[in-house]
């Protein structure tokens, strides 16, 4: 999969991912989060962003299952699920739902964050069905 090219708005996210933390941008004034990371709060237009840890669990809002490989290197990777995942108000992120049959995915399915190591040592957060430990 393509690797990210961080910029001034997204660098804190990728830096934290490298340390195994999923952080999201929230407005220092109104406290509401947004996604994707931007330079200004889209709710109150405050321009001070405070990054903080996201909940480690979210729920599936919508999803598709990529069945057609759109590049040759993906032939062995399809089918894979791509989901929009609600982490907290204002923050709906993209991830895969890993380690689960894509046909088992439903709206509202609970998922938890874990981290994958990609090429060049880049760590990318992703999502899976939570294990039994509800405190995880």
């Amino acid at each position, binding site marked *: 999969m393509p690797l990210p090219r961080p910029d001034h708005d997204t660098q804190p996210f990728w830096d934290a991912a490298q340390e195994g933390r999923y952080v999201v941008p929230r407005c220092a004034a109104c406290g509401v989060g947004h996604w994707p990371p931007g330079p200004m709060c889209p709710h109150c237009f405050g321009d001070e962003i405070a990054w903080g840890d996201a909940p480690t669990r979210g729920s599936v809002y919508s999803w*598709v299952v990529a069945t057609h490989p759109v*590049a040759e290197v993906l032939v062995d990777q399809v089918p894979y699920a791509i989901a929009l995942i609600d982490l907290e108000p204002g923050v709906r992120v993209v991830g895969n739902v890993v380690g689960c049959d894509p046909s088992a995915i439903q709206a509202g399915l609970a998922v938890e964050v874990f981290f994958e190591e990609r090429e060049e040592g880049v760590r*990318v957060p992703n999502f899976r069905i939570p294990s039994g430990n509800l405190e995880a």
Partner: protein
Amino acid sequence: MGAQLREKAAIVGIGETEYSRESGRTELALACEAIRKAADDAGISVGEIDGLVRYDMDPVDEVALTSSAGLRNLRWMSHTGYGGTGGNAVIVHAAAAIAAGLATTVVCYRSLNERSGARYGQGSTWMSEKVGGFEQMQMPWGLLTPAQAFGMFARRHMIEYGWTSEQFGAVAVALRTHGSMNPRAMMRKPITVADHQASRMIADPLHLLDCCIESDGGCAVIVTTAERARSLRKPPAWIMGAAQGSGTRARGIIFRDDLATTEAHFTAKDVYASAGVGPADIDAVMIYDHFTPFIPMALEAYGFCGRGEGGPFVEDGRIHFDGELPVNTHGGNHSEAYIHGLPHIIEATRQLRGESSAQVPGCEVVLSCSAVAQLSAAVILRKD
């Protein structure tokens, strides 16, 4: 809003190249041919064109056209963005420029070798590079193509409103029925809902037959002043109303608060106010059909049925050329060609001239719109 545009301008010329899988020509050559044909259709010379609107994605710029197509008298030009909304947005810009007196005769065009060149439906180009912008927040998880992004909207409508894949199939059948009647169409073999269901899955819930085709070709449309429109070769298609806009918090395609509400819900109010008509006055609708679910989504946004009712609405032949509300009588992006929505404006013009291959009897007012889910635009046209 926008009433000051009402019938200040009209579409007077339409031009198309052949639509194919491989044009064997440059996009500049396609644009030049389409512009020349549109000028011929209007009965004017290319040198009389003094305004130009291009899609910001078009590889052919105005400078290339001053040299190659003879557009030497330009006094106004603009670009519009966001892919498939462009087919309507270029007409909005042209109408606004004419109403403001900035130009008298404006050409809008789109040329692309999308099938033989870089295909939007392929992800290979992304695989070898690092991605920035909002795309860095989707592509590392394999969300690479429009089908995958727009499939999220289809899924959400299935969740919230119980829409079915068979309803999307009914849209595909309508589009191909119209394509089968259109001598310009690339896809003319009729299909059934069973064929749609049997077509391979691309990005579940979207099957192959939910996805538009990829094409090479060029289109051009000429818009001019009310005064001039009355004296040209073909009957004018009057621009009753036009609107463009945003309306929701969105970045890219999928990052938005609500996948069941698109910018079309906002543009709908503006375009009807601009034209001074409502959904009951519309005889046919042209809708940007990159993926089948976006036809029922647009029908809801533009008030032809209630929220959530678009899925059932498109069944039972209702959107066929001989149905209650004909949609995309040329076969749309699915059957005629994918030239980024400009053929929809050309077909609207043909319907109003009585020249469509799937002519709607008594067609007097046509809405052209989209629910493309980035910026939005819409136009309402009236028969002379």
